[in-house]
C-alpha cells in the first residue's frame, strides 16, 4: 500500500485530531485562535497543492485500486481544501452563538473535509459508501450544533431520517450491483458493465445508487430536506453543506456514471434530462415566495443542482468540464452570501430578508458583496455565474443534434434563469431600497472575516473575467476521467 498517495488525507485527519486534543489545554478565551490556526493550516495545504510537493499532483492508485489519484480528484481536493478553510473562518465568526464545544465544531468540519477528500479519490463502492457516510454523519452533528434552537434540532432530525433513508437505498443498490457483476472496483466494473445493460437486477441497483447520490446533490425528487436543513442549521454548516457536500455528491456522481458504468449511462440521457429540468424549475419556482434568506438559498441551491446536472446530462467532456468550472464559481458565490449572512445578521433571531434593510449604510462592503453574490448566482456578466451557465448551456446545445430533448432542456434552463432574476433581485432591493431604515450601528468585522469576503469577491470576478486558466484546469481534470464513447 502506497501511503504517500494519501499524504494529504492523512495530514487533514491528523489536523482534526490535533484540534480536538489542543482543546484540552487551550484556555476558553483563546479558542478563537484555534479556529484561525486550523483555517490557516488548511490554507497552507491549499497553497502547497500549487507550489509544493503534494500527493494530489501525482497519479496512481493504492489500497488495491480503491483509492485513485488523478487530475480529476486533484481538482476536487483543491476545491474542498479552499472551501473548508473559508468555512472555518466563518465558524470562528459564528462561535459566540455556539453554547458548548466550539473546538469540536472546528474539528468536525475538518473530519467532514477528510470525508470529501476520500470521496474525490473513491474508485470503489466500499470507498464510495464509507466516504459518503463520513460526510453525512459528520453533517448530522454539525447541523444540530446550536442545540438550544428548536429549528436546528428539527433540521438535524429531518436530515437524519432522509439521509439514512437515502443511504439505505444506496447500500441496497450496491448490494444488487455487486451481486450481479461481482465487482466493487469501478474500472473492473466498467469492463463488464456492457454485458449487464439488459439485466433488470443490475439496472435497479444502479438506480438505487443514483437515489443516494441524488440526495447528496439535492436533485429532484430527493430535495425535500434542503430548505429546512439550510434554514435550521448554523450558518457555517449550511455554507459547507451547500458547497462541500454538493460537490462531493457531484464528484462521486461523475466518477460513478462515467468511469464505472459508461455503457449504461450512454442510454440514460433522457432520465438525466428530465431530472435536470424538473430540478431547475422546482428550485426556482419554490424560491419565489421565500422570506427567509437561508431558506431562499436552500431553494436556490436546488436550482443550481439542476444547472449542474445540465453538464452531466450532456454526456460529453465539455459538459463535465463545465460542471467543474461552475462548481468553482459556485464556491465563491455561495460562500460570499453565507459569509454576509453570518456577519450581518448576527444580532437577529431569524434570517428574514427584511433584516437586510439599511445594510448599505451599516456596511457598504457587505452590502456590495451580497449584491454581487446575488448577481453572480443569477448569472449576469461579467461574474463567475454567467460564464459557468454559458458553458453548461453550450455543452447541452452542442448535443442537440443527437437528441432534441437537449433543446427543450436548454430552454427550460433559460426559463429558470429568468425566474431566478426575480427573487435574487428581491434580495438586492431589500438591501438598498427598503422604506424603513433602522438606526443600526455600523458593522465591524474581524480581519480574517474581511479576508474571506475579499477572497470570495476576487474569485467571483476572476472566474468571470479571466476564465481560461480555470477552464484549462477543469478540462485537464475531465480528461483524466476519460471521455464517454458515443
Amino acid at each position, binding site marked *: 500500500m502506497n501511503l504517500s498517495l494519501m499524504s494529504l488525507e492523512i495530514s487533514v485527519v491528523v489536523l482534526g485530531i490535533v484540534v480536538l486534543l489542543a482543546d484540552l489545554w487551550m484556555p476558553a478565551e483563546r479558542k478563537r485562535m484555534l479556529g484561525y490556526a486550523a483555517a490557516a493550516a488548511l490554507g497552507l495545504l491549499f497553497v502547497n497543492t500549487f507550489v509544493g510537493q503534494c500527493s494530489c499532483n501525482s497519479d496512481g492508485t493504492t489500497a488495491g485500486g480503491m483509492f485513485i489519484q488523478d487530475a480529476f480528484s486533484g481538482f476536487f481536493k483543491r476545491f474542498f481544501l479552499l472551501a473548508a478553510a473559508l468555512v472555518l473562518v466563518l465558524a470562528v465568526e459564528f462561535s459566540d452563538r455556539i453554547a458548548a464545544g466550539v473546538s469540536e465544531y472546528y474539528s468536525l468540519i475538518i473530519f467532514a473535509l477528510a470525508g470529501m477528500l476520500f470521496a474525490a479519490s473513491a474508485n470503489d463502492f466500499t470507498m464510495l*459508501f464509507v466516504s459518503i457516510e463520513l460526510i453525512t454523519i459528520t453533517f448530522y*452533528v454539525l447541523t*444540530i450544533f446550536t442545540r438550544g434552537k428548536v*429549528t436546528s434540532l428539527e*433540521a438535524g432530525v429531518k436530515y437524519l*431520517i432522509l439521509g439514512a433513508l437515502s443511504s439505505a437505498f444506496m447500500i441496497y443498490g*450496491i*448490494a*444488487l450491483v455487486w451481486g450481479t457483476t461481482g465487482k466493487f472496483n469501478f474500472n473492473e466494473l466498467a469492463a463488464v458493465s456492457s454485458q449487464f445493460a439488459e439485466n433488470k437486477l443490475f439496472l435497479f441497483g444502479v438506480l438505487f445508487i443514483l437515489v443516494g447520490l441524488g440526495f447528496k446533490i439535492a436533485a429532484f425528487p430527493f430535495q425535500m430536506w434542503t430548505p429546512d436543513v439550510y434554514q435550521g442549521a448554523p450558518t457555517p454548516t449550511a455554507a459547507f453543506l451547500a458547497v462541500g457536500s454538493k460537490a462531493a455528491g457531484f464528484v462521486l456522481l461523475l466518477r460513478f456514471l462515467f468511469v464505472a458504468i459508461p455503457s449504461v449511462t450512454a442510454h440514460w440521457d433522457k432520465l438525466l434530462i428530465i431530472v435536470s429540468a424538473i430540478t431547475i424549475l422546482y428550485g426556482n419556482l419554490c424560491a419565489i*415566495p421565500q422570506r427567509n434568506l437561508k431558506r431562499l438559498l436552500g431553494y436556490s441551491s436546488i436550482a443550481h443542482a439542476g444547472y449542474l446536472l445540465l453538464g452531466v446530462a450532456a454526456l460529453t467532456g465539455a459538459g463535465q468540464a463545465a460542471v467543474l468550472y461552475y462548481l468553482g464559481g459556485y464556491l465563491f458565490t455561495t460562500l460570499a452570501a453565507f459569509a454576509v449572512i453570518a456577519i450581518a445578521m448576527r444580532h437577529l433571531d431569524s434570517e428574514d430578508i427584511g433584516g437586510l434593510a439599511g445594510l448599505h449604510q451599516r456596511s457598504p462592503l457587505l452590502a456590495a458583496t451580497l449584491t454581487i453574490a446575488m448577481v453572480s448566482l443569477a448569472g449576469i456578466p461579467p461574474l463567475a455565474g454567467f460564464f459557468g451557465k454559458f458553458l453548461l448551456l453550450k455543452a447541452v446545445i452542442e448535443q442537440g443534434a443527437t437528441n432534441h430533448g437537449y433543446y427543450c432542456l436548454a430552454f427550460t434552463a433559460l426559463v429558470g434563469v429568468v425566474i431566478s432574476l426575480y427573487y435574487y433581485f428581491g434580495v438586492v432591493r431589500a438591501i438598498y431600497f427598503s422604506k424603513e431604515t433602522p438606526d443600526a450601528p455600523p458593522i465591524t468585522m474581524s480581519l480574517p472575516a474581511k479576508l474571506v469576503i475579499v477572497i470570495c469577491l476576487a474569485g467571483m470576478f476572476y472566474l468571470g473575467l479571466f476564465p481560461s486558466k480555470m477552464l484549462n484546469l477543469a478540462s485537464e481534470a475531465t480528461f483524466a476521467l476519460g471521455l464517454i464513447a458515443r
Partner: protein
Amino acid sequence: MTHVGLEHYLIVSALLFALGLLGVITRRNLLVMYMSLELMLNSANLALVSFSRFNDNLNGQVMVFFIITVAAAEVAVGLALIVALYRKRQSAHVEDLTSMKY
C-alpha cells in the same frame, strides 16, 4: 422440502427492504422510523451475504462489516439527536416538527 436457493434469500431481503420502507413512510414516531431504517440497512446486508455465499466471493462479506460499522456510528449519532429533540420538545413525533414553514 424444496431446495433453498439464492432467489429465496433475495426475496426475503427484498421483503425486509420493502417492510422497512413502509415503516419509514407510514409510522410517525421517530424511534420506530429509525428502527425501520435499520431494517432496510440489514436487508442489504442479507443480500450481500447471500450473494457472497452463492457466488463464492468473500468481498461482499467484507462490505457487510463496513456497513455494520457505519450503521453503528449512524445509530449513535441518530439516537443522541432524537434524545436532544425529545428534551427540547417532549415529543418524538414527526407531526410536531413544524417550526419551519414558509
